[in-house]
């Protein structure tokens, strides 16, 4: 075994980014993908004959600019599609509200709803551009060693602090207040239009086990701002679906010298004297590894692939307490034509433009909060919050001529569903003093029921929808776990709550892409700065790995 043996588990966008940078540095990383297709949660798949969609992630975070440049993704045929409309909020009793990439155009649109909000919007945009710019370095910063921060780490934090100071008192105070705040309060602080408030709040609960009134939901919004300078996430698609992006990342990585194997399921990671020794496939094949980088979520990596019993039990306990309860279901519809949204013949160009970004369903803060309430009690929302895309409006390659694909991100669909009468027999716990159990398997009998709820709700906005459905695929959190290996079905590899961010992601002491096992690293969304197709975790992880290898 040579010190150059590097094995990367999983082939999602973060894994491939890591693979590229390690290969670029002269290593020969081997990427192992369990499925027949690479890309992890960043894939394009045919869900109905002739109809393809981005199965999980539908839009980039966006990707870190330096990654786009370093890997020369354009060269590999990546074509980013940025519709003029970021998001269009549908409203049953009133006109739709569109937020455009162009702030001025948005203000004009808002003028018809509220002159106050119309006037405030530009300030809103510039404020979070400023704050986002100051926070941006955070994304590519390795969280400091909390117990013994190095001079360099303190220096980097100092620099960040200085950048924040540079914002001036007003923004500093904003940042201090927003950090732990509920996103519903943030939205209300800026705007009076309910549907605009809901659009802003939605980003704070995207993929989270939280409602707009949950404290800390501003955190995700600030991360979004750090990412692309806006709290209202853009619609940032990729031509050919998100799979095209990971395909390009793979090309870049292989050309740089990485090898990629599909249909290679890892059974376990073996450790010898505190260091990774080999990776064992379920086929029984053994691959020696001096360095092993897992892009899987921390739950799988630490609790399933590793036998930690003799290593640091405290770490194991912390990992068991790591919260990763998914709340997202995806529904893909194959449509024979564009549904009539916005009470109009969707044929008309203006309408097609409005629908070409993200379509938001969740007219009020209370609507979003109610949708969340269900999840707390192990039920899926009777009226879910939905973030919908019709990629075929900007990318005809995904469906037959004239036909369309509709991808629906629906919340809340909790990983475990309440199972009447079933109570877990905890260790010597009087059973009746335990709440009813929530079991993921319950989804197997209720998957299509959820699909129906979503289609029915949507039909209220697009009356002719049902007639146009040629095919439908419903993915519950259970499916996200089974098929895509997201434990708990959590699309961010774990809750992005304040106690699980930065130096605490996934857990304190191991937030620096390293683990208690020498040579074992994490590079997935379960590490700083978390979920979303940004590539940042992979980017940071590769930097730390190379640092260690140099140090020898």
């Amino acid at each position, binding site marked *: 075994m040579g010190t150059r043996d590097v094995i990367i588990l999983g082939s999602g966008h973060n894994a491939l980014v890591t693979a590229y940078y390690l290969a670029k540095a002269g290593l020969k990383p081997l990427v192992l993908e369990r499925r027949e297709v690479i890309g992890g949660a960043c894939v394009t798949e045919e869900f109905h004959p002739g109809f393809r969609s981005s199965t999980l992630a539908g839009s980039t975070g966006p990707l870190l600019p330096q990654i786009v440049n370093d890997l020369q993704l354009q060269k590999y045929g990546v074509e980013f599609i940025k519709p003029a409309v970021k998001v269009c909020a549908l409203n049953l009793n009133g006109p739709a509200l569109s937020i455009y990439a162009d702030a001025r155009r948005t203000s004009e649109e808002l003028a018809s709803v509220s002159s106050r909000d119309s006037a405030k919007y530009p300030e809103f945009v510039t404020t979070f551009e400023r704050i986002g710019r100051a926070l941006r370095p955070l994304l590519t910063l390795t969280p400091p060693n*909390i*117990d013994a921060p190095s001079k360099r780490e303190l220096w980097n934090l100092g620099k960040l602090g200085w950048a924040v*100071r540079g914002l001036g*008192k*007003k923004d*500093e*105070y904003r940042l*201090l*207040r*927003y*950090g*732990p*705040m509920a996103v519903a*309060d943030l939205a209300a*602080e800026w705007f009076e239009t309910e549907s605009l408030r809901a659009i802003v709040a939605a980003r704070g609960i995207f993929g989270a086990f*939280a409602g707009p*009134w*949950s*404290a*800390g939901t501003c955190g995700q919004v600030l991360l979004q701002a750090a990412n692309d300078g806006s709290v209202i996430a853009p619609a940032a698609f990729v031509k050919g679906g998100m799979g095209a992006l990971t395909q390009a990342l793979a090309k870049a990585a292989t050309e740089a010298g990485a090898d990629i194997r599909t249909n290679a399921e890892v059974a376990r990671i073996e450790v010898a004297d505190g260091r990774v020794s080999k990776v064992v496939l379920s086929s029984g094949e053994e691959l020696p590894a001096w360095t092993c980088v897992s892009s899987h979520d921390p739950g799988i990596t630490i609790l399933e692939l590793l036998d930690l019993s003799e290593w640091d039990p*405290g770490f194991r306990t*912390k990992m068991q*307490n790591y*919260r990763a309860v998914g709340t997202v279901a995806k529904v893909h519809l194959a449509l024979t034509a564009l549904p009539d949204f916005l009470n109009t013949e969707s044929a008309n160009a203006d309408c097609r433009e409005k629908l070409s970004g993200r379509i938001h369903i969740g007219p009020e803060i*209370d609507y979003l*909060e*109610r949708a969340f*309430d269900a999840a*707390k*009690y192990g039920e899926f929302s009777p009226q879910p919050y939905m973030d919908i895309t019709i990629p075929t409006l900007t990318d005809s390659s995904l469906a037959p001529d004239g036909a369309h694909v509709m991808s629906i991100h629906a919340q809340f669909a909790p990983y475990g569903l309440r199972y009447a009468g079933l109570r877990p027999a*905890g*260790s*010597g*716990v*009087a059973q*009746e*003093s*335990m*709440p009813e159990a929530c079991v993921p398997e319950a989804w197997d009998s209720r998957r299509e029921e959820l699909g129906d709820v979503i289609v029915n709700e949507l039909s209220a906005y697009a009356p002719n929808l049902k007639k146009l459905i040629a095919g439908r695929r419903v993915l519950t959190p259970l499916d996200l776990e089974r098929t895509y290996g997201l434990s708990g079905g959590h699309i961010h590899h774990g809750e992005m*709550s*304040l*106690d699980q961010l930065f130096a*605490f992601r996934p*857990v*304190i*002491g191991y937030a620096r892409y390293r683990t208690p096992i020498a040579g074992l690293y994490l590079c997935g969304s379960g590490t700083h700065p978390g979920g979303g197709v940004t590539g940042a975790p992979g980017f940071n992880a590769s930097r730390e790995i190379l640092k260690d290898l140099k140090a020898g």
Partner: protein
Amino acid sequence: MNNKYDVIVIGGGHNGLVNAAYLARAGKRVLVLERRYVLGGAAVTEEVFPGFKFSVCSYVVSLLRPEIIRELDLPRHGLEILPLDGTFTPMPNGDYLWRVNDHAKTRREIARHSKLDAEAYDEYGKAMVEMAHFVKPVMNMTPPDPASLNPKGLLDLLTMGRRFQKLSSDDKYNQVQLMTMSAVDFLDQWFETDVLKATMSASGIIGTFLGVRSPGTAYVLLHHYMGEIDGAFRSWGLSRGGTGAISNAIAEAAREAGAEIRTKTPIAKILLRNGEAKGVVLENGDEFYADVISSSVDPRLTFMKMVGEEHLPEDFVDDIKRYKFRGSSGKVNLALDALPDFKAMPGAGPHLRGAVSISPSVEYMERAYDDAKYGRFSRRPYIDMVIPSLTDPSVAPPGKHVMSCFVQYAPYNLKEGNWDEKREEFGDTVINTIAEHAPNIRDIILHRQVVTPLDLEREFGLSEGNIFQGELTLEQLFFLRPAPGWAQYRSPIKNLYMCGSATHPGGGIMGANGRNAAMMILRDKK
């Protein structure tokens, strides 16, 4: 001129009185002006019905700073804290959870529900005491302003950082989790028994517009251990003669030090000259002058009503308007002919001498919150009951009892109707909820006083009925309380200070706010 003082303290609540006492002891000529006929603010005892003395609002003592008890020599002035032993939680299935101060007993009781939890309970206790030790000094410090370059402030921040550094990795983790997690998520890491988590997490939501599953509620779990480490008394206690007796003791200490205290003196305006506070004018027109005005009432009253927007910087006005009150709780005070009889533990046992908590499950608590979120009081509320007359017979006629029921949630803003219409309906809901566990309650009620958030606002001057003068959420704590840049008891108006619960370290009968503010005033006016 006898209407000229060194300091005028607005409001005769416990913080106002503590503030006055410390200033008077430092030789200042102090005048305290209280709007009501009785002192104490929300820490008050009133004979609402002949022979029955109620701690109308705040009803238990947990955090009164020991150094204040010591320095103001409160026992000599009549303060006597009686133990309130344990919390009894009846369950719908006839079982119960009964935690008492006797650790071994509690351990056995918890083991009855879960062996694992009994073991975890010890570690949990140890960890929390560690945390409490870390947080305690923060109570008495003036929050630094992180946005200023003032060396003292930066030094304070640095010192805090250093102290945090010194914590073990696990303790650091606990600290961060306590500040950011929900009470239930935090407790999930330690315990499995639902009713235990429900009852413990209840302390995290008191006075806030949050649910037991809302992030930020874990922090208050610490407060129970603060009392412990201070050693003055266990985590919870009752004051002989009701909570008002605390205020009276503090008032005595203040008077002894030379402070003048007047009741029935509602203030209309704070007098300004060239933008500086110079006195107050009462609603009857009387004027009093002072070099320093120290207000213990909440910022909305102090600045929006008594000062007036036009005299304040725009940003500050925005901050105060944005400051969240959102009262979420009410009180039902009962005069009883006999003791309630709980199905889960019949008879007048020692379990009635502690608190009785209606918090049977986490879901029960969370659903109570859901009602409030959408603008109605909980159909089945969380209730914390105390029967002080069992430990302190002086508050009720012989053989009779007073029962104090703290009720959550009762949102200040109702979607339908108003609190004047809903008052009795709310009262009935509370009685019905109690009756589910103690059916005899309906037959033993002699009198009933229902205190709604609206009453708290009207009667006790708590804006939106928030018992802590503003929500205790992270973005309104420490250097953000009540407004960023104004967390050091000063205000944009020269010579106008804040000393109430709307300042660091927040609400509850602590007195730290009044004491810290006094220190700041004395420092400025040396």
